[in-house]
């Protein structure tokens, strides 16, 4: 029997060298490029990526993906090294099945 696809929300920290100005669209493109580079179409079609929240001032972001591709997304985020020529780290902090679960986490 085919099971219904479940979702995962990944909270990630943005660690940057200098201030970065970038739109949500550029950020999403960056993540897609990383997915394509390391995993190709075989994994990309299963992901169901959605950039739920991006706050460069608070240095956090939340993305949504399917539960089976959680590790793929974390790897893709980890392997991103720069945005617009500036060094950046996207470090996953917490994964949850609901957005409510992530809201409980406070980043110090």
């Amino acid at each position, binding site marked *: 029997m085919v099971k219904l696809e479940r979702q995962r929300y990944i909270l990630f*920290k943005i*660690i940057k*060298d200098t201030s970065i100005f970038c739109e949500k669209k550029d950020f999403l493109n960056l993540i897609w490029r990383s997915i394509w*580079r*390391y*995993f190709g179409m075989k994994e990309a079609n299963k992901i169901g990526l959605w950039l739920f929240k991006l706050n460069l001032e608070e240095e956090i972001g939340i993305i949504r993906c399917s539960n089976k591709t959680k*590790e*793929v997304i*974390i*790897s893709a*985020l*980890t*392997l991103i*090294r720069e945005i617009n020529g500036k*060094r*950046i*780290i996207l*470090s*996953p*902090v917490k994964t949850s099945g609901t957005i409510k679960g992530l809201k409980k986490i406070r980043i110090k």
Partner: protein
Amino acid sequence: MSYFESRLRVNFENPSEIKKKLDFCERLGIKNIILEPKNNIRNISISLKKEIENLTNINLFYRITLRPSGLNELKKIIKDYNNFTDILSVETPDKDAQLYAAKDSRVDLISFSTQTILKTLTPGVISLAKQNSSFIEFSLAPIMVSNKSIQSKIFRNLYRFTRLVRSLKANYIISGNFKELFDFRHPRALISICYSLLEFPLVDAKKAFKDNPRILLKKVQERQNSDFIDTGVKLIKGVK
């Protein structure tokens, strides 16, 4: 205890550099780090350890890496490390020295961190390391390159040799060993890379970053006990 960054190279004579790196690791959320001196320090004094531990809240552990060019050099320098209090690792491209290190009970870890050294890994070394309950170390630092063809070759080599070690059921750990500050990654993120790109089962990947470094540290601690003879062999006093 949570995940380990099993290798962070720092200059022990430069406290500001150590502080900078440790603060960055704290920002990433790393809880346990094994520090290795960049400069040729033979032994890390207790006062120096305390000084470094005052800089951070991270759990710190220490290791020394010997880099002999050949077997004779290894035999000569390893004499100073009887009953060593920290982790002792050997990193060498010389196959004879690797075999000797794998047999020697003073050596806790045989490191295959760079690509040139990784290619010299043989089943013989793995088997001897397994018999001696020492660990094989891989590093994920080389994957942080922009060139796609070089990166795919690095992934290929890592895939090939980690698979070999896993198939022979030897003990292994995986470290970050990143040089640049912005290449540092949290061990949990590195587990995902091992799982999705190096085809590790998730349990094995977690073991390489969590359980195995803990076992390694326990082994080093046990060595300090005078009643300890070998792994699983201990003198029990006062029992008739």
